[in-house]
């Protein structure tokens, strides 16, 4: 018997070969990109299987931000649940509120008055710009471009100032109510929105100038994380990711809600479905949002802002699924009512949750650094993924 104290560090190769499985698989390295990581946009754990620096496959472990929102929904009345939905996609809270309010309005069979729907469109499109600005800043930061972060957050500040003046909150706005709006737009609302648009329009050109033809940006994003249109449809991926893969589909045009059919705008589409195309699609979407807000602010109708809804809401028993085009994709609400004041089941179909499934497919064969770029380009918000 050899003395273990002197031969502890020696591994007997012949012994290893006798095992069925190799003791150390030198080909595949499993690395944990843990829940706390500056570039995962939240608490997302990604387990990477690497061959050197090339990704062979990855597995996402989510649930670190699971707050049981759907369970809470069963124990709150419809109006009480309204603030909770803002907290799911906390980056773009107004869209969540719009989806929820519209779904409950469908259950109650009421329609928000025209002025309310108009203001809803303005706030939701501002929200889309704000969400894409945050996306642009953080995505560029992950890839290494530090400057856009400061510029885009400055623009986001302007939008958040408008929100604060309107409803008192910057981030989790609770801007809409079931049946319309609670607050009338403040004096100077149209003027401020118009000022913001004239301030913001040249900024998009500025960001495009910084990034679109930038050699480093193009090298890091072209042909990275490409996904084909068939894979997108099969996986249920929606939003700018789907549009960048070539499918011209936007819920605002396909199944219009909240007054969108009165506005003239285009749907930007990409060709390759890679990170660069997703960047271009989102930049173009911001321009289209500016266009919609312009049209909306000029044509703001007069009238009431709240429809006649009962104080105690008891929708008749039934179930409704309604979805909107959130900045990240198709945000759906499936609410089942049993006739009482509290919903029987609130199901939120989050776009980020379904889009994140595509991460594995998009990262196969890419380098580790590209995984960061792809997570950024999917534009996920863990609050929405986990609820």
């Amino acid at each position, binding site marked *: 018997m050899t003395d273990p104290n002197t031969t502890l560090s020696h591994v007997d190769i012949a012994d290893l070969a006798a095992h069925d499985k190799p003791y150390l698989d030198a080909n595949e390295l499993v690395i944990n990109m843990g829940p706390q990581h500056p570039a995962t946009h939240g608490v997302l754990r990604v387990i990477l299987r690497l061959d050197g620096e090339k990704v062979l496959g990855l597995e996402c472990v989510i649930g670190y931000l699971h707050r049981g929102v759907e369970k809470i929904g069963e124990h709150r009345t419809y109006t009480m649940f309204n603030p909770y939905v803002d907290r799911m996609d906390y980056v773009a809270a107004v869209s969540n509120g719009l989806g929820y309010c519209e779904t409950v309005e469908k259950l109650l069979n009421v329609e928000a008055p025209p002025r309310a729907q108009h203001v809803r469109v303005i706030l939701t499109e501002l929200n889309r710009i704000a969400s894409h600005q945050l996306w642009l800043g953080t995505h560029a930061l992950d890839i290494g471009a530090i400057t856009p972060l400061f510029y885009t957050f400055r623009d986001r500040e302007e939008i958040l100032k408008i929100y604060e003046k309107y409803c008192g909150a910057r981030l989790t706005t609770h801007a809409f109510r079931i049946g319309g709006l609670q607050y009338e737009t403040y004096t100077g609302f149209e003027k401020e929105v118009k000022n913001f648009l004239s301030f913001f329009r040249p900024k998009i050109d500025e960001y495009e100038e910084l990034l679109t033809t930038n050699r480093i940006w193009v090298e890091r994003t072209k042909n990275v994380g490409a996904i084909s249109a068939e894979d997108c449809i099969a996986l*249920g991926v929606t939003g700018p990711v789907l549009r960048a893969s070539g499918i011209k589909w936007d819920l605002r045009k396909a199944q219009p809600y909240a007054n969108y059919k009165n506005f003239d705008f285009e749907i930007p589409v990409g060709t390759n479905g890679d990170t660069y195309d997703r960047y271009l699609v989102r930049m173009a979407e911001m321009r289209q949002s500016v266009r919609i807000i312009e049209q909306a602010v000029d044509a703001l109708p007069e009238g009431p802002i709240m429809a006649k809804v009962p104080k105690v809401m008891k929708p008749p028993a039934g179930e409704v699924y309604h979805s909107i085009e959130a900045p990240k994709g198709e945000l759906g609400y499936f609410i089942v009512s049993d006739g009482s004041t509290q919903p029987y089941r609130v199901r939120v179909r989050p776009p980020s949750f379904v889009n994140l499934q595509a991460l594995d497919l998009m990262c196969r064969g890419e380098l580790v650094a590209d995984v960061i770029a792809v997570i950024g380009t999917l534009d996920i918000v863990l609050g929405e993924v986990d609820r």
Partner: protein
Amino acid sequence: MIAKLKGSYGSGIEPLTYAGQNYMVVDRSLIPEILQVLRNEEQFDYCVDITAMHYPQREKQFDVVWVLYSFARNERIRVKTQIADGANLPSSVPIWAGANWLEREVYDMFGIKFEGHPDMKRILLPDGWKGHPLRKDYGILQQDNEWVQINLGIESGQ
């Protein structure tokens, strides 16, 4: 389209409408065939959502709902089926790849297993979690009290 499906499957399908939205309640035995037909022949190529509801007073306690959308027709439809507690459903992952995480979440929250799923395990809750939270008999206070008692050794103040 509904008429054609009703013609093929007769009593197994019950088409309904509520609030302008079409959905059908199908017999458990028709799953997954009806889903295959919807995807392959009727072009419902996008599986929007898979979810479930729990009705503890009913004999068949769970309602499982598939929300499907067809790009070509610009139409959304829901397929609903009722299963008993402890029953399994065949997985839709071979039909739509995106059903993967959606079914995992249904399992996590309700305990409904999908046979043939490549990775049937919990997704949102930690792996060792006991119970399925979205069931109606899962009390949220019970879970909190238990945790406080085990970990802090006191009675919970709730």
